[in-house]
């Protein structure tokens, strides 16, 4: 029904446009007519935006809140004998059973109350969606008639349309802020619910992470299952391995491209780095599982080191490969931003290319490179698919790269995959981890951008 409503909006807006334009043309075209302020098309657009936009907003709001409202109504309509003494979780279960039944999926024979409620829900859904269509159509026709009366030769239709357009554009640029606010609010909301169950000090400083045992709410009081230190440590270990792999390769690549390579080499290497940067992370994850982890395991076996099948080294190494293009392109930018006069001066004094690089360009570009490395670190910490596929699930507090460790992102995914209910501490813990992840990566990004910006100003 939403689809039909949107179609109706489009059709009526087009109708409105032609109505407005033709009536404006009538007084624009006549001989000896008044001078017209706006072109006829703007009169059409004026009516069309006022017909279309409010109805569009109405339909969107209606569609987003219809489900929740109907759920509440259905719950309220259940006979009190049925709902009495039931916990919210049980009521939720009943509600989803009603919803399933209403959409035609039956499992076993439902209770008569549920059956009745499902029938009610179906009829209400029908009524609601028809009502939406009718209300939207009525609204549009009323607006059309009203806006039509505003059209006059001296009416400033263009200014009015442009105002609406400006408003729309401002709204669109605020979407980015709304997204950030949405992220912060949703993470905080669920995290605060989590910290009511598990004290925040325990979460941040506890050394034991065993969310699996806390399946039932009465178990969370059990000894310190939500201490996230091992998870943070695992994240740092894998990110550190990734950076150890990526920094030398990326940095030396950038140095070579800036100082030694001719255009021919650069034209080959740069696209290859872009390809590397464009490979989806799930592909790297599969590569880690299929190729790198067994290879590392075998190598570990040859050296007599006990190697876990999902070692931190495998995940970190592959993550490092993923970050190489990131570091190389940011270092490349930083090295190129050093004024040419400094480089030429050094070369003119008889310094070799390597001396110019290590004594002049690198020190000058160091802040930019550091900024790039920080951005890469934030990327490594937030990277998900590689570690979900190649790292372990069990949180161990270790710095041995041959051991299996887990990361923040792995824990978030493993806790939220599958059906989740929003009242178990396990689910809420994922949001708390997400909050930490968001704050840390945001901090790193802000810091990095600040460094890069300051450094850029220095040379401009």
């Amino acid at each position, binding site marked *: 029904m939403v689809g039909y409503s949107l179609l109706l909006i489009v059709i009526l807006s087009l109708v409105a446009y032609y109505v407005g334009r033709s009536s404006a043309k009538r007084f624009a075209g006549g001989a000896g007519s008044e001078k017209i302020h706006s072109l006829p098309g703007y009169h059409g657009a004026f009516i069309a935006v006022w017909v279309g936009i409010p109805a569009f907003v109405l339909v969107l709001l209606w569609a987003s*809140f219809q489900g929740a409202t109907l759920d509440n109504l259905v719950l309220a309509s259940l006979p009190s004998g049925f709902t009495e003494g039931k916990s919210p979780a049980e009521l939720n279960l009943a509600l989803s059973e009603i919803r399933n039944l209403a959409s035609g999926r039956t499992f076993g024979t439902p209770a008569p109350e549920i059956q009745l409620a499902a029938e009610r829900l179906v009829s209400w859904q029908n009524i609601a969606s028809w009502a939406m269509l009718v209300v939207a159509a009525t609204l549009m026709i009323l607006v059309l008639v009203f806006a039509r009366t505003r059209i006059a030769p001296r009416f400033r239709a263009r200014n009015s349309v*442009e105002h609406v357009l*400006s408003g729309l*554009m401002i709204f*669109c*640029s*605020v*979407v*980015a802020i709304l997204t*950030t606010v*949405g*992220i912060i609010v*949703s*993470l905080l909301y*669920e995290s605060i619910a989590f910290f009511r169950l598990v004290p925040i000090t325990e979460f941040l400083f506890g050394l034991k992470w065993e969310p699996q045992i806390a399946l039932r709410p009465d178990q969370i009081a059990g000894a310190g299952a939500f201490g996230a230190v091992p998870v943070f440590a695992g994240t740092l270990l894998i990110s550190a391995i990734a950076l150890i792999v990526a920094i*030398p*390769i990326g940095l*030396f*690549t950038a*140095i*070579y491209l800036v*100082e*030694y390579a001719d255009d021919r080499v650069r034209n080959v*290497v740069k696209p*290859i780095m872009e390809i590397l940067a*464009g*490979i*989806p*992370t*799930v*592909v*790297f994850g*599969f590569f880690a599982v*299929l*190729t790198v982890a067994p290879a590392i395991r075998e190598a570990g076996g040859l050296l007599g080191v006990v190697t876990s099948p999902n070692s931190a080294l495998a995940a970190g190494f592959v993550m490092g*490969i993923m970050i190489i293009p990131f570091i190389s392109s940011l270092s490349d930018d930083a090295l190129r931003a050093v004024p040419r006069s400094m480089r030429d001066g050094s070369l003119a004094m008889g310094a*070799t*290319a*390597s*001396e110019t*690089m*290590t004594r002049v360009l690198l020190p000058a570009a160091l802040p930019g490179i550091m900024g790039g490395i920080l951005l890469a670190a*934030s990327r490594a910490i*937030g*990277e*998900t*698919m590689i570690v*979900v*596929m190649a790292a372990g699930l069990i949180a161990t507090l270790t710095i041995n790269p041959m051991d299996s460790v887990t990361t923040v*992102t792995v824990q*978030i*995914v493993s806790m*939220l*995959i599958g*059906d989740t209910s929003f009242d178990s501490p396990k689910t809420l813990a994922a949001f708390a981890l*997400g909050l930490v*992840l968001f704050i840390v*990566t*945001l901090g790193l990004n802000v810091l990095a*951008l600040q460094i890069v910006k300051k450094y850029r100003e220095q040379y401009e």
Partner: protein
Amino acid sequence: MSETALTGPVDWTSENAVGRRRSRHAANRRLQFYGIAAISTAIGLLGLLITTLVIGGYPAFLQTKITLDFPIKAEYVDAADPAAGNYRNVVRDALLQIAPEATTPPQQRMLGQLLTNNTQFFVRDAVVANPSVIGGTLTLTVPAADPIDQLNKGLIDRTLPENQRRVNDVQLGFYDRLVEAGQVSAPFNWALFFNSDSRFPELAGLAGAITGSFYALLICFLISFPVGIAAAIYLEEFAPRNRWTYLIEVNINNLAAVPSIVFGLLGLAVFIQLFGIPRSAPLAGGMVLALMTLPTMIIVTRNALKAVPPSIREGALGVGASKHQVIMHHVLPLSLPGILTGTIIGLAQALGETAPLLLVGMNAFITSPPGGFLEASTALPTQIFIWADSPERGFTSRTSAGILVLLGFLIVMNGIAIFLRQRLERRW
């Protein structure tokens, strides 16, 4: 002037000077060598990645099939209701033709394991489509079971001892007989593109995932394209330089670097929990992807707008156009090629995104393509993730094949973007 005077002319040919020069040049060559080594390592790793994928994935583009004559006896299949026939027996009879000695149940079971588990349904569908074969024989080519498929592709070593091999000696004998009779073929695996997910590797395909990804990307495009352009136009052309617009800009830059999984958490909490969009729906996935692509869209659009020379704006303003008219009639059309290029690249990134889709549940096991934006579905990258997690050997090559298909889509999209950039972008 330097205070320290040189004691005499420098002898550049002295042993010391030559040695110093030599070591300095050696250092130079060393740095150059490190650079070459780094680049070769990076390229080598990329090559290794792609080689393993191609070697692992190409077998999945072929599917071993077995052609058999199925005797459709009237005692098993009633002409009045062909859909309800006992096709299990039909399949058994057909298999007994190649191995008449298989009379005990265990032997017959081994025989049955040559073909895909769903063979009886293939036969049923063929009979229902053409009921005239009842009483006669039906020649049908059906996919072989996964172990036989692997064996035919040479991925199972038949010299291994029997207990380390997924095909036992008896089945090996049956298989050899089929090969001798010319009943085994390996045509191109169209099922990879036209089937949806399945528990059996030989039947699993990407159709559902591709459809799901298409719907999600469509939503992503419908939201992020207009919103991104509008926001970019406002920020680039209209916004006053004040604290608010600075805040918005910083915000957009930071949003571009927020880990994708955090967007998944947002989608789960807001779109699914608050708005009640069904789990696994491409609508939810597409909306999350749209929010993720939005910063990219805004940034590329702003760059495209910046590239339009101010003379165009001034010319249009000079002949009396309003600011809006300047942008709508001149600046935007001129920057459209750049915007489109950026859009395609943004969508290509969105196509490869996996983590946020996992959180909104697009990793469900779904055996038919979604029929709409609200039906549960998977997406290409999540399908790859599901297959990568499956224990069956056959899914390993399917995973690689799925990745190759995904990379193929990405190459095509980026190719279109490069083509557009070269063809349409105007240099001023």
